[in-house]
C-alpha cells in the first residue's frame, strides 16, 4: 500500500512538472477531460490520456490521471478506489441511475439574489429517449426563500368559523412570508415542490448557473465527486475532486442528507 501511495506521489510530481513546462494550447486541449462523456470513456478504459496506452497498466494510469493532481490529500482512499475499480471492472454509463448532477444556480427572489442547488439525474422515456430530470432542490430554506425561522399557531377555534383566518394568513404580506410556520411540526418542507411552485408562480427567476459538480455512487464502497478544473496543463477539465469511502447504508445516508433526496426516491435503487 505504501509503495502504491509512493507511486501515485511520483505520478503527481510528474504531472506537476508537466504543468510547469510550456504546453501548447492544442496539446493541453487534447489532454484535458473536456466533457463528462470523455470522463466516462477514460474511466472505462475506452479512451486514454494522450500519454497512456491501452494496456491494463494504461487503465490504472488513466484512472490515476482522472484525479486532480494538485490535491495530494486522501491518497489511501484514492488508490483503494482505483484498486476496486480494476478488481470489479466497474464501468460508468450515461444511463446509470447512480450518478447525479448538482447545479449551483444564481436566482432572484423578489429582487433579492439567492443561490440554490438543483439536483438532476439521467432518465429514459419508455421509447428510450435520454434526458435529464430534476430530482431535488436545496437552499430555499437556508437562503430564507422559504422562511422556517418560526412556528406559528392557527387559533384552536378557527374551525368554527370555517378557518376564516386563512384570508389574513395568506393574503397579508407580513403573514405570507412566514406561512411555512403554520404547518405541522411533523412535516418537513419539500424543497423541490416549493421550488417548482415558486418558479411556476414567477416568484423565482433564473439568472445563471455558476457551476456543476457530479456525484458518482457507482463504485462499490466508494462515492466520488467530479468537478471542472480550468487550467492549462495535461491535468485539467473534469477530474475527481474527492473520494469518500461509503458502504450501502452510508450511500443511502449521502443521498438523503447530503443530496437531500426523499426517502421514497431510494426505493428500487441498489448499490
Amino acid at each position: 500500500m505504501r509503495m502504491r501511495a509512493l507511486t501515485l506521489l511520483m505520478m503527481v510530481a510528474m504531472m506537476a512538472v508537466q504543468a510547469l513546462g510550456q504546453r501548447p494550447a492544442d496539446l493541453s486541449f487534447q489532454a484535458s477531460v473536456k466533457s463528462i462523456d470523455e470522463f466516462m470513456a477514460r474511466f472505462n478504459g475506452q479512451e486514454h490520456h494522450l500519454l497512456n496506452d491501452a494496456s491494463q497498466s494504461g487503465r490504472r494510469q488513466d484512472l490515476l490521471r482522472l484525479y486532480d493532481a494538485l490535491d495530494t490529500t486522501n491518497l489511501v482512499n484514492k488508490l483503494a478506489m482505483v484498486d476496486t475499480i480494476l478488481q470489479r471492472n466497474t464501468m460508468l454509463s450515461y444511463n446509470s441511475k447512480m450518478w447525479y448532477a448538482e447545479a449551483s444556480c444564481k436566482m432572484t427572489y423578489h429582487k433579492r439574489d439567492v443561490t440554490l442547488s438543483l439536483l438532476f439525474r439521467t432518465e429514459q422515456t419508455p421509447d428510450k429517449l435520454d434526458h435529464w430530470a430534476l430530482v431535488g432542490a436545496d437552499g430555499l430554506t437556508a437562503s430564507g426563500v422559504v422562511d422556517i425561522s418560526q412556528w406559528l399557531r392557527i387559533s384552536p377555534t378557527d374551525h368554527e368559523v370555517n378557518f376564516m383566518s386563512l384570508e389574513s394568513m395568506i393574503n397579508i404580506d407580513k403573514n405570507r412570508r412566514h406561512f411555512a410556520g403554520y404547518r405541522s411540526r411533523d412535516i418537513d418542507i419539500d424543497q423541490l415542490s416549493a421550488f417548482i411552485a415558486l418558479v411556476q408562480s414567477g416568484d423565482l427567476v433564473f439568472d445563471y448557473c455558476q457551476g456543476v459538480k457530479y456525484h458518482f455512487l457507482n463504485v462499490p464502497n466508494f462515492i466520488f465527486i467530479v468537478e471542472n478544473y480550468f487550467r492549462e496543463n495535461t491535468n485539467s477539465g473534469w477530474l475527481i475532486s474527492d473520494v469518500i469511502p461509503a458502504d450501502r447504508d452510508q450511500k443511502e445516508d449521502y443521498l438523503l442528507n447530503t443530496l437531500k433526496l426523499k426517502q421514497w426516491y431510494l426505493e428500487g435503487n441498489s448499490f
Partner: protein
Amino acid sequence: MLFAAILPIMASAQNYNIGLSEQEKEEITNRVKQKIDAFLQQLQYVASKDYEVSNEAVKTTLALFIGQGGAYKLDGTWHNGVKMQTATLRKNRHGRPIYNKPVLMTRYLKNLQGLPYKRVTIEQVGAVRVDNLRRVGENRYETMAYFCQYFRGERDGGYYSDNTWKSVKVYVERIDVGGGMTWQIYLGDMKVQNITK
C-alpha cells in the same frame, strides 16, 4: 485575413445503440466539424470593418444555429435564442480570468462587430472532439462538440490574444430531401470551458 484550417476529428470510441450505423455516425461527425469550421470562418467576416461584409456574415452565421439564432421551440420548451458565453483574460478582483454570463448569439455577434480592433484573427486550434450522439426523438439526435479557438485583436500600439476552449450543443435531424435522406445539422448554445494565453 486568416482562415481556419481543416483539422482531424477526435470522436468518442464508445458505442451506443441508437439506431445509426458507424458510417452514419462518422458522416454526422464530419458534418459537425464542417459546421464549426464554417462558424469560425464567418466570425472573421463578422469582425470585419467593412459594414456590408460584416452584416452579411452575421446573417450567414446565424443560419448555422437552431432557430437561425432567434426564438425556437424544442421538445415542448421555448427558448429566447441560442446563447453564447464569452470570457476574457483580463483579471477579476480575485486575479482570475472573467467568465461572462451567456448572452444571446445575436448580441454576441453585435458585440463582435463593435470590437475596437483594426484587425481580428480567429482560428481553430487543434482537433474537434464530438461526443456520443443521444437519440432525442424520431430521426433526431443531440450531441456536444468541443474545440479550441484562437483570438487575436490588433490595434495601434498593441494586441490582445487568447485561446478559448468551447463546448457547443449540436442538433442533428435526418430529413427526406427529394427521395433521399440527408442530415440537417444545427449548432446550439456555446459555453466557455477554459481560457488561456
